[in-house]
């Protein structure tokens, strides 16, 4: 069985059979964009369902179980309901910015999705600065949250947005530095090359002690960057209503909601690619069947997503000062020391290679 997943090449070749070259290029771009949009929405809805099921499991409930077999269609029904809802807004809101805000959040997470190698050839945009591009894009999403909070003309929304800004800006440093620690081993920022390096063992094994530290710091900072519990100061229900999206309704609210879940997927996917070998199978057991890479990639990502959900339903929420203390007094110095340790290990050739 041989499934070609080299999507850009396949579609360009297919279309250039009966179209002039430039039209074929544009056509291929449109088709790939549509494929990624489909992945985006399906993955988002699926993750919402998983979150609810996991929450139910942790709280000894059943979770959604009425719509479709085992409640599988519940989130589809929710999405339909949200589409049909009225879009309300506050009277004195800045309408332009209010409507623009959800698109910032959703476009930045959609752009981040495009650089992941789902398997060897299933990658839309293999840019040579892949990892750095991901960090750059993720810093734009916060603008959407700040705008949404301010343009709603609502105090709770504004406070939520300010908290989110502080939190995202601080924890971005830890995310960047912990990924930089791993770049010391790979020597490249390109995601396909990072996976290629890991054919001699996953990076978390190659880099042993500092790599495990980097992974722990990355998961903590990543959870904080996506504004999820225990770091969900942004939408702390008991204090702020619903935080920055208090005034949003219907599909505009759903955009924020979907983007949050896709961001969680992105954080987990970066971790799976950088620390756990991306689409590589463990011990190379399915190397002869390349398209199974998608399965391994998704399996690793979903395991990490489950880890993040586990955090959410286990830990109590932090206070704002605790949140900032954790980042600036503990994670950041630890991270800088960790980079030095990793540099020493790479310099003295102490990495474990199979």
């Amino acid at each position: 069985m041989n499934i070609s997943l080299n999507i850009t090449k396949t579609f360009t070749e297919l279309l250039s059979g009966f179209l002039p070259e430039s039209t074929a290029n544009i056509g291929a771009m449109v088709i790939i964009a549509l494929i990624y949009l489909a992945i985006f929405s399906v993955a988002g809805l699926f993750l919402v369902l998983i979150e609810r099921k996991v929450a139910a499991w942790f709280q000894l409930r059943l979770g959604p179980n009425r719509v479709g077999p085992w409640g599988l269609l519940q989130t589809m029904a929710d999405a339909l309901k949200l589409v049909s809802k009225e879009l309300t807004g506050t009277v004195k809101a800045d309408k332009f910015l209010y409507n623009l805000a959800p698109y910032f959040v959703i476009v930045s997470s959609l752009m981040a999705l495009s650089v992941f190698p789902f398997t060897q050839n299933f990658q839309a945009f293999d840019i040579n600065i892949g990892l750095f591009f991901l960090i750059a894009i993720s810093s734009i999403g916060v603008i959407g949250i700040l705008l949404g909070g301010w343009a709603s003309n609502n105090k709770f929304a504004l406070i939520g947005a300010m908290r989110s800004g502080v939190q995202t800006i601080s924890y971005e440093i830890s995310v960047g530095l912990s990924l930089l620690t791993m770049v010391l081993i790979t020597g490249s920022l390109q995601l396909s090359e990072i996976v290629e390096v890991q054919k001699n063992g996953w990076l978390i094994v190659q880099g042993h002690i500092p790599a495990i530290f980097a992974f722990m710091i990355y998961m903590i900072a990543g959870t904080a960057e996506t504004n999820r519990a225990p770091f969900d100061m942004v939408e702390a229900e008991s204090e702020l209503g619903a935080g920055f999206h208090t005034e949003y309704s219907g599909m505009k609210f759903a955009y924020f909601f979907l983007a949050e879940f896709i961001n969680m997927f992105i954080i987990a996917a970066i971790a799976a690619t950088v620390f756990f070998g991306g689409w590589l199978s463990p011990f190379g057991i399915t190397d002869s069947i390349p398209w199974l890479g998608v399965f391994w990639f998704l399996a690793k990502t979903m395991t990490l997503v489950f880890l993040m959900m586990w955090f959410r339903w286990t830990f109590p929420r932090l206070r704002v000062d605790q949140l900032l203390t954790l980042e600036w007094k503990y994670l950041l110095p630890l991270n800088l020391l960790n980079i030095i340790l990793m540099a020493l290990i790479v310099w003295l050739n102490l990495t474990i290679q199979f």
Partner: protein
Amino acid sequence: MERYIFYILALIIIVFAIASVTSKKMLRSVIYLLFTLCGIAGIYFLIDYNFLAAIQLTVYAGGIIVLIIFSVVLIHHIEMELEVAKKSKQILVGLACLVGLAVFLTTIYSHPFNVVENSVTTTTEDIGFGLLSYETGGFILPFEVISILLLASMIGAIVIAKGGKTNFGNKAKDNSNLKN
């Protein structure tokens, strides 16, 4: 195809730059500025200088714009609008801009540009070697100077943010003296 993308990006940059200076609402003009900066990042992507494009996105879009938004959000109410300047000032600024544009355009049109045929993708590795090389064409000195500058500004920011208790008391006294 690349030519069309260039024209679209140029149009985006110019339109949003004008919108940014003419908008009466402060946060809106910040967002127009963001679109201008993203358009410039797009041009870097177009010439395959990916690293600079990502730097543009992180530093300008992700860093500076977020800081500006923060300061605007903290001090600015949603119903406030900026005042329109006096006619005489408007004309003066317009003239100054025209002079600047004239100097800029004459420089560009009088300079003989070499059209380079090849398209080289600059990798991060090249940039790293360039930054840390001390041979001719290396940038080690500016690199070190900038790091010292950044360190100094960081220490300065910490000192200002922390303040001294005695200093604060003196300042309060000074202010009260001034009031009296």
